[in-house]
């Protein structure tokens, strides 16, 4: 894909890591007056340039669906402009909104972690889920459907059995996906599409799946019902509980922050 990180990785690593780590932990949002003073020292073009770098960095991470930590953003991109961080983020948010139709959402307010969410109407064939060119998305869609139809949480065995029926065996190396189990329990989880957690008090440990925050924001439950309806030749309304959930107001707005 076209966007790549401006700063090359080896350079970052070679920097005095310890000092940087300290900086991360102590980074606090500068106050409005600090930002004001900071802005007096730089030109508008410099702020725009920094904003462009931030936008690129976020797009690259988002390409791989990796959530963005504010600390990394400051450390790798914003750097000496950290005193005007709020202004840069404000401009980046505006750019994502106006140019890309994406919104930068903070999914973890404690650790300051962001993801990009599509603002274009997800019912209208906007999202990649309605037009999966990437087979992994198809796989994910199946898993999210199972979880949704089973009321929001399922034991992992149910997922593995469903996939086996579709000839995707988590125990074998798959031609397209490689290590299926890793894709599902690691990649999709890191991308915040799925949550994968140990069921308390199980010995040996058993795990269960839920929808992750990104799925809540990006995936239309109404679409899933439609898909299930076609699959089973049934009206979506016949799953009344799911239908109500899919068409409740919170599910429809989609890009509002997670409801859980």
């Amino acid at each position: 894909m076209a966007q790549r990180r401006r700063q090359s990785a080896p350079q970052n690593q070679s920097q005095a890591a310890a000092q940087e780590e300290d900086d991360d932990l102590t980074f606090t949002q500068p106050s409005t007056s600090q930002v004001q003073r900071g802005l007096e020292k730089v030109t508008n073009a410099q702020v725009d340039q920094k904003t462009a770098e931030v936008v690129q960095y976020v797009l690259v991470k988002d390409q791989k669906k990796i959530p963005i930590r504010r600390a990394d953003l400051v450390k790798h991109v914003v750097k000496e402009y950290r005193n005007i961080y709020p202004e840069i983020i404000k401009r980046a948010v505006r750019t994502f909104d106006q140019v890309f139709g994406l919104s930068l959402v903070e999914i973890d307010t404690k650790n300051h972690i962001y993801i990009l969410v599509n603002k274009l109407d997800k019912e209208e064939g906007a999202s990649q889920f309605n037009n999966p060119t990437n087979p992994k998305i198809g796989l994910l869609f199946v898993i999210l459907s199972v979880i949704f139809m089973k009321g929001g949480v399922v034991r992992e065995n149910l997922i593995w059995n469903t996939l086996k029926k579709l000839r995707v065996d988590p125990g074998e190396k798959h031609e397209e996906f490689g290590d299926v189990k890793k894709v599902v329990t690691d990649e999709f989880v890191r991308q915040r599409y799925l949550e994968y957690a140990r069921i308390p008090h199980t010995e040996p440990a058993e795990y269960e799946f839920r929808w992750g925050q990104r799925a809540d924001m990006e995936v239309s439950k109404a679409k899933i019902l439609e898909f299930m309806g076609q699959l089973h030749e049934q009206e979506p309304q016949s799953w009344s509980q799911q239908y109500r959930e899919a068409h409740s107001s919170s599910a429809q707005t989609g890009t509002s922050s997670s409801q859980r």
Partner: protein
Amino acid sequence: MSRQMGDSHRRFLQTMMANGIVDEQGAKTLYQRCCEIHNTQYAPDKLDEFIDILNSRLQPLFMQIRKGMSEENGQQYYALVNMAETDVTRMSSDYADNELELFQKTMDLIVSSENGKACSTDILNSADTLTTKKLKKSETEHLLQRLVHDKWLTEKRGEYTLSTRCIIEMEPYIRTMYQDQVKVCHICHNFAFQCQICENPACSIKIHNPCVARYFKGRSEPRCPACDDFWPHEIPEVRRPHSHSRK
């Protein structure tokens, strides 16, 4: 038609970000779909204007949707390119240093070859000369697969060429790094890697295969457009666009 940026533009851009590159027909279809979904006016012949509006907003971000021709089939493609960096270090978030070095060596091989191709044996041999960190044979093979998958290289029967996307996106880099070696097509004036060459040593102009097909179509005796010598190569058929569009 509206000069304003709208949701139809945003949707178009999002799809370009997901795909990296689309052929002209794909771009037209996408343009139409985006306009339909967002109920904006659609004019079949206004694709480039539509993209210009996007580009005016992408430019401050050092990004651009750029048009280029496939050396393979002569079709136009649109690629979303990043202009923030003009060398291969831009690939550095996806590839390690020695992997990038191997990619550079592959480009060297392709650029210095007559036909714009590098065979896998030569690439594997050059892996032994890496200065950063040696790559094992299996690692090199795996890397080549990745470069093809990421659409930087194209592979056919063990021979590698620069992909359309790579030529469009790396244009400034190729221009600086290989300015003496790289020639442009006599017909379309884009870089010519996979092409035919005039055999008159005083001339030796290059023409892309699809450009050859179009230029010589219907001419009884093919002659070089520069030196008028006989053109001794096989003249390929003009490919009907989109009959079998390659990804």
